[in-house]
């Protein structure tokens, strides 16, 4: 192991041992899965019509969900980090609820809201908008579970950066919107990006809420996790192969998040 730049890391050796056990706990199941893959059939399995349809659908919906997370999450994070009003703590807990709710519970809640007999269901039906069993429902489910990731990471970054620069900008004559555009957002852009990447990863892996709320139909609502769940019944080889695809995509995404996060560490050093 390479020592830290100044030669002293301050980490006791037993901590390293425990960390290694923890890492093994996470890595061994991945390894076990990789060993079960039917490599001879791998390419035909993952390039079958249903597999490709599922993967493309997953990517499309996750991208849409991520966009929605950014559009709604940035303002939410700003309000939570920069304003002060009665009931704010309660609101924050509620907004972060999808993080701890079992996704199936989230799906049920969405059903009761947007379903045919749901809170808003009648209104949508009158407007001629069908949500149930549509790709829109998938995007809604994914946005619901992924939104807290962006809000949480961005709110943290906003608090760390503080609002001193915004105050200076205001005294120089910049309106609140100009301050947001030219000062706040550029300063927290790395956090927005890494939050977006995390949201994308969460949306990609979303299963329970999608299953309960959107249904499962190839090309429309059967995302990759749902396809894996189904293939499990009859064709374990396909299920494992597709699982590996999902794992690889997730690893790529997480390393992207890690790299966009690094510039923010550099910037944090500059700010301090």
């Amino acid at each position: 192991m390479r020592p830290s730049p100044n030669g002293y890391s301050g980490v006791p050796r037993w901590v390293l041992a425990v960390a290694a056990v923890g890492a093994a706990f996470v890595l061994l199941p991945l390894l076990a899965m990789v060993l079960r893959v039917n490599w001879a059939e791998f390419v035909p399995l993952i390039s079958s019509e249903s597999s490709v349809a599922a993967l493309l659908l997953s990517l499309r919906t996750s991208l849409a969900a991520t966009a929605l997370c950014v559009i709604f999450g940035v303002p939410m994070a700003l309000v939570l980090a920069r304003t002060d009003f009665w009931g704010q703590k309660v609101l924050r807990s509620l907004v972060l609820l999808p993080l701890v709710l079992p996704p199936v519970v989230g799906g049920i809640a969405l059903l009761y809201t947007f379903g045919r007999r749901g809170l808003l269901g009648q209104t949508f039906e009158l407007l001629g908008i069908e949500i149930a069993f549509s790709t829109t429902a998938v995007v809604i489910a994914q946005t619901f579970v992924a939104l807290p990731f962006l809000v949480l990471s961005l709110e943290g970054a906003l608090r760390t950066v503080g609002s001193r620069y915004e105050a200076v900008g205001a005294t120089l004559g910049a309106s609140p919107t100009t301050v947001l555009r030219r000062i706040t957002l550029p300063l927290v852009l790395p956090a927005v990006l890494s939050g977006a990447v995390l949201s994308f990863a969460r949306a990609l892996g979303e299963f329970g809420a999608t299953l309960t709320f959107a249904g499962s139909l190839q090309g429309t609502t059967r995302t990759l996790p749902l396809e894996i769940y189904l293939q499990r019944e009859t064709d374990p080889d396909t299920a494992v192969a597709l699982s590996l695809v999902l794992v690889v995509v997730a690893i790529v995404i997480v390393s992207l998040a890690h790299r966009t996060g690094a510039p923010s560490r550099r910037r944090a050093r500059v700010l301090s």
Partner: protein
Amino acid sequence: MNFSLDLHVAERDVRLHLTVAAGETVAILGPNGAGKSTLLGTIAGLIKPDTGRAELGGTVLFDLPAAGRARHLWRPPHQRGVSLLAQEALLFPHLSVLDNVAFGPRSAGASAAQARQTATRWLREVDAEQLAARRPAELSGGQAQRIAVARALASDPGLLLLDEPLAALDISVAPAVRRMLRRVLAGRSALIVTHDVLDAYTLADRVVIVEAGRIVDQGTPAEVFDRPRSAFAAGLAGLNLLTGIRRGTTLVTADAAATVLNIPESAVAEGAPLSLAVRPAVVSVSALPPADPALTHVRAELIDLEPRGDFVRARSAVLAADVSPKEAAQLDAAVGSPVWFSFAATAATLYPTVHYDRTRSP
């Protein structure tokens, strides 16, 4: 532009009335916690007071009357035309130096090219034109503060607020920045909060002393520092201040704690409050009464001897004297016992103790 302010913040116990004439630079000095930062914050629009009113060049910045009256105005910071310069430069880390300085003009609606021209001009004013392409992270403290001054002035504010602008700078760098400030503040309305008497003397047309949320003195630097009315002002000016009642040729301090004998003639009437200011450098200390009875002298317990570079400060409850290290060594045994502080009558300034009248304008 003319500026006037009435301010009341109950939470921090601040109650002030202040004016700045067009083109005037006013320095505000006071002990920590006196309310100076609150003052600047309310003028800039970043802190909301309980009641008060401020007006700049005819535009009302805020008007918060005591409860019950209808008019209530709070202009947001970006509409006030007031620029704030703090101890830290706070240059926007993601913009170049030039774009930092151009920020104000751009926010006001100037085109990118125009704003950059204005920015270049101001960078030249503060002797920092060659830094235009740099990033804030690449600047030294002094350089950053210069850019911050340029940035604050580029937006052409009606009033410039400076909050201890030189406090974070190296001793070697501060003088040059101070000279630059003197140059660019000429003809500008400015309010500068500082702890440094040199800043007051160099930059200010008028000095205001704030203690415990109230103004306790105002005047030109010479008026305020040659004849200090408070211990704090005297400390800033580097003067001893004795206040008390005149009794014949003596000055009796409050609680009759000390009696200064042989005070010089003054215009102060018998029994009237009297202030005496004298520099520590001209005061001598001796264990025995002074040989020359014509000297003004006072007997007080020697509390401590503090080395200060070339000399040592001998402190008592009423007076301090600067003595040589040799004399300090001789006095060492006398610490804790009464000694005599003496000085030539001509070296002291006597004046009536007049408390600052807050109702008097400005």
